[in-house]
């Protein structure tokens, strides 16, 4: 089991390390958000009931965003494998779809984690104002990994159902961006009107963002243990969904 998972993971890592332009490209948007929103709004936005400035506030949100977008992209790569025929090579091998799916999920999550970690390092140089302990960093890392796993699996689930990349824009606009927008990545969730707050609390990414925020900044309106439970549950659900749909792929 693990040897096959490792094989698929290894292929993903090789492709990732080889495509530096893609690597840099996918860091572009989060960096842009970080710089423009961070510096742009830093002087005019105050977080109610917190001494933290806005830059420090959005860093965990931008990290979560990086991990989420990268992992969804990684999951959706399966469509390319389908179109470019490589998936056949994997599917005709005497290995189970479960192994392939796990390897793909782990590969995508690792890549997303690394991308998120790069943003974390860059933001610490920009000046997030966090005094993160090692323990806090580990907590943030756990949440980053959970976001990575769940959203890669989500991407694979989508890719298993799609024939080509035409529907991708639709998914981005109506699923991925709303999930990002509704999470507490860019604004504090406890100062929202009640109806909107219930929406954000229904968004799994909120728990991921707040978990990272708890880890890095030390405070968060959501109890990190509860956040962990929600994210872990969401991850299991997505991996299960991804596995079921991936199994149904017909070539």
């Amino acid at each position, binding site marked *: 089991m693990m*040897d*096959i998972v*490792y*094989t698929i993971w*290894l*292929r993903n890592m*090789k*492709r990732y390390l*080889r*495509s530096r332009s893609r690597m840099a490209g996918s860091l572009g948007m989060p960096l842009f958000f970080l710089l423009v929103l961070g510096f742009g709004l830093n002087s005019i936005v105050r977080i109610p009931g917190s001494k933290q400035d806005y830059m420090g506030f959005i860093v965990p949100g931008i990290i979560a965003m990086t991990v989420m977008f990268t992992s969804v992209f990684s999951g959706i790569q399966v469509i390319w494998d389908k179109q*470019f*025929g*490589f*998936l*056949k*090579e*994997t*599917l*005709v*091998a*005497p*290995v189970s779809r479960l192994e392939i799916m796990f390897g793909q999920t782990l590969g995508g999550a690792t890549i997303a984690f690394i991308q998120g970690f790069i943003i974390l390092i860059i933001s610490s140089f920009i000046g997030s104002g966090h005094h993160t302990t090692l323990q806090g960093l580990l907590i943030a890392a756990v949440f980053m990994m959970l976001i990575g796993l769940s959203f890669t699996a989500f991407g694979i689930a989508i890719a298993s159902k799609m024939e080509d990349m035409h529907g991708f824009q639709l998914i981005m606009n109506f699923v991925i961006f709303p999930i990002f927008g509704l999470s507490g990545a860019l604004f504090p969730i406890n100062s929202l009107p009640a109806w909107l707050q219930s929406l954000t609390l229904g968004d799994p990414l909120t728990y991921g963002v707040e978990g990272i925020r708890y880890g890095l900044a030390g405070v968060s309106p959501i109890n990190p243990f509860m956040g962990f439970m929600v994210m872990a549950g969401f991850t299991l659900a997505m991996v299960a969904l991804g596995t079921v749909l991936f199994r149904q792929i*017909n*070539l």
Partner: protein
Amino acid sequence: MIEVENLTKRFDGHVAVDNISFTIERGEIFGLLGPNGAGKTTTISMLATLLRPTSGTARVNGFDITTRAGEVRKSIGIVFQDQSLDEELTAYENMDFHGRLYRIPRNVRQQRISDLLSLVELADRKNSLVKTFSGGMRRRLEIARALLHEPKVFFLDEPTLGLDPQTRNHIWAYIERLNKEKGITIILTTHYMDEADRLCDRVAIIDRGSIIALDTPDKLKDEVGGDVVTLESRDTEGLYTQLRKAAWIEHIEQHDGVITLTLHNAERHIAEIVQLSTTNGIDIESISIHKPTLEDVFLRLTGRTIRVEEADIRDRMRMMHRLHRGGG
């Protein structure tokens, strides 16, 4: 080695493979010959356990394709019609990925990879990314890769589709060598007559999902009988009517604006054909005599030619698609 029994595949009411049965012996090169859309790839996909048959079954290397899919997969190597390499990886890495998927131990894997890459003359390019490879090189790499786990049965789906004549000859030579030296049972699909004729010990001609003939290429051609004469004229209709009366013509067929005749001792009758047409005031534009080919067999059986033109267009589109991919 392969026993197919009443294998059938339906897609939403349309029958792609219609109740076919055949047996392939160990060490044989077996061809599935037919036009595009005849059901060749669907048959291969079912035998390779990628598609579930609607009804019927088959055994590959003694294992049932529906109940022992894992064993079947270990027994077979397959080269798909469309490319299935990872272009972002090197030739070696593509091989290595395959070797790991089939759980070949590291030292064996490395040895076989270098042997096989030498066999297909890619040893010096083993560390190049596949996206820099030509169509022929990719095909060779796919053949090498599919052999890595030493399959008992080797499936080749249109192995030379879209390749230039020189590369095709090259690929044919590999296939023959594999069969002779390693004794691998080979089943290939093709819509190229010359390919089936040159490579295959036996050929199943498949049309619209059914096998319409199955024998050695020589026997199939013998059944056409005698020589084949092809005539072109502006007035095929008139010529057809005249020639139909000639008793020495064994078979006559009008198709695609040409007339195909089968007769014995064609050399002797050519003069008669010409005379017959001149007395009736019909100009013949060209005459050719040849020994029967598998194309003639197909024509005799179906009244159609294997849609060569259509195939050519598809080839070109596929090539463009490949080039496009190669660039991107």
